[in-house]
């Protein structure tokens, strides 16, 4: 199962859990599963069917350009990170 690192400010929705395991084939499926298990999580991460622009998603240590469409391996590690500003 994919391991999700829960964003710090969303851990109130997971009862304080910093990491949770989710079976999902893509980031989109993973967000849906999180929403089902932790109601409210989906709307915090996504807006209008897209990952909010304030988040980036990293899968297995690499920030994904495919975002919600990124495929996941069974043992993938998923991070939702604040977008790094500036540059």
């Amino acid at each position: 199962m994919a391991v999700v690192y829960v964003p710090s400010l969303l851990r109130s929705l997971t009862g304080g859990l910093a990491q949770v395991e989710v079976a999902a084939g893509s980031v989109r499926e993973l967000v849906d599963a999180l929403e089902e298990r932790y109601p409210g999580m989906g709307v915090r991460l996504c807006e209008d069917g897209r990952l909010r622009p304030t988040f980036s998603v990293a899968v297995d240590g690499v920030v994904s350009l495919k975002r919600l469409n990124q495929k996941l391996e069974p043992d993938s590690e998923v991070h939702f990170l604040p977008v790094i500003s500036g540059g």
Partner: protein
Amino acid sequence: MSDKQTPIKDFQVIGTSPLRPDAVDKVTGRALFGDDVRLPGMLYGVVLRSPHSHARILSIDTRKAEALPGVFGAVTAADLPSFTDAGAYQRYQAENALANQKALYYGHPVAAVAAINPHIAQEALGLIDVTYEILPVILDVRQAMAEDAPILLDDLRTHEAGSRSDHSSNVASHEQTSCGDLELGFSQAAFIVEREFHTSTVHQGYIEPQNATAQAHEDGQITIWCSTQGAFGVRDQVAEILRVPVSHIRVIPMEIGGGFGGKNNVYLEPLAALLSRKCAHRPVKMIMGYDEVLAATGPTSASYIKVKIGAAADGRLIAAQAVLCYAAGAYPGSPVTSGMDCIFAPYKIPHVQIDGYDVVVNKPRTASYRAPGGTNANFAGEVVIDELCEKLGMDPLEFRLLNGVQTGDRKADGMPLPVIGFHEVIQAAQQTPQLSAPLEGPYRGRGVACGYWGNYGGTSSASASVNADGAISLVEGSVDLGSGRVAIAMQLAEAMELPYQDIQTVVGDTATVGYTEGTYGSRATFATGWAVYELAQSLKGQLCERAALLWDVEPDQVGYGKGAFTNRVSAESMSLRALASHMDETGGPVVASASVHPSKEGPAFGVHIADVEVDPETGKVSVLRYTAVQDVGKAIHPIYVEGQIQGGVAQGIGWGMNEEYVYDEQGRLLNASLLDYRLPTSLDLPMIETVLVEVPNPGHPYGVRGVGEMPIVPPPAALANAIYRAVGVRMQILPMSPPRILEALWEKERN
């Protein structure tokens, strides 16, 4: 594009230091900058700026100005398209270009005029009547965060991980990263240090001011010549502000006289285009005075940072907490998340919490500045680390070896670090001549500080064609800020196994090369270098096919190496130059292009060592000696890598010692000139020694990791730690200018 390249170790071109192709043109004045643009019928545009830092604009009347002989037209926010259906970011972009209803900082553009010459245009500005209602001013980030603070943007709500507050606020966002159990961590610490820090608003200090010349054509097309770090970024922003398709805008980047992050945003470009449209499609040229550059382009954030760090008795870090409050200027967008990423990045710490706040104040909208957000955060983090080392009785570099991150360690956000060379850097720092040289005499001290910058990959494009003489013409999309043009051409030469001199390089514009992000995030040599590596593979493949045609063999029976093709059947050989002369008879020109978006950029770490002497009478700090050690991945052009490091350190010393925006209580900038905004000069700087540690980045075919930004991160902290050892005061405010040093010394005496 493969993401699993193994860096090549035996290089022919990479690692050498050829001369840059633009060097002679630049030192002889032949290179063409924005100010060199002269077009038939060209008008000159100037900007009327708000004298107030927070005011409601009740009315603007440009009729008298427009009636002045020689004036062709004036524009205000009323000439911009409506943004009622647009997102806040797009609206803020437009409002920053021309204030609409409210002026939010001293120097905020209110109107612009174009005339037959700059003198008439300036005279016309005095004829524009603007009525203001002056509003309360907020300059300090913590005052802006107060519940009862005057609100700058009525529609601004605080965003917090996907939620939005229900009331107006100057706090645009709150972010947080954390790991472990902070309370538990601090309860286990034997030593804890807690301090608060303040840093001032500072500017990039590029010497060439912003400039733009725009031609709005009758068919709706717009051409813009300007000084920018990224032609496509200008195109996209102007398209957003004027609400025209990006395909209607061509942006031609001129040579650039410095950017350092400050030339990613547009200021004059949309105004020149608007004026050109309004003035019978005459081209309009606009150039800022340096007072305008300082007052109204994007400096970087002032900040308030609170840090608490705890270590066990054996020196191991256990817990760390930071709150970073960054002033974004008039509109959201400070680099606070970058600061959050940087502040504890060099260290393995099991329990961490970092909070960041992006806060609007009545100052110009901030822009990037070399490792944006990193220097502020690192100053706070590394000064506290130094104090912790003192409490522990540990050598600062031994402390870093004990606690420093290595490949695979996780940052506070949980992300694992890829291959890094931080420990190699620390060990190299321990061997530097400066560290072993005695530092004697009163009021002298030596300080060290580490630094981190994550670097960035991003989208890059390039195209190339083989000439009949075998040389290759390269068009690459990255504006050359420092040494990118050479470093990119060298990578193509390496990939083609040709001498560097066989590559002729030009920087493309938005009509001549594929989409390329700006030159920022230390990305050009990394990402555009990867693009030319990719197109070289295509060129070599096509050339092998041409050789196969001539030899009447299959392409896979042709080999290529060191600029020559080999017929594996007959063992014949033919140089690329010889093959190139047969292009026409084998199918026409050989061209290739590539667009890439590599994401394994590989972070950079460094250790800086500063020796200073403090004059206790005046508070002046002299930097006696300075060494910067950095993991540079593979140095493509070592001399220019050294130059990047020396440039970053010079700017970091300026930030640390003297630079700051000085405002009066009404928010008027008092030092808007290079006489009064104290950039460091050659007299303020020692020879900056550099040590290049090469730990190749496996995420790039040649091991490149960005180098340009990291060197500005450690200097203020290294200087502060040196000042402490010289005179015993812990500086917690930037800049550490003579008055502040004296104040700290007097405070120490009083206590």
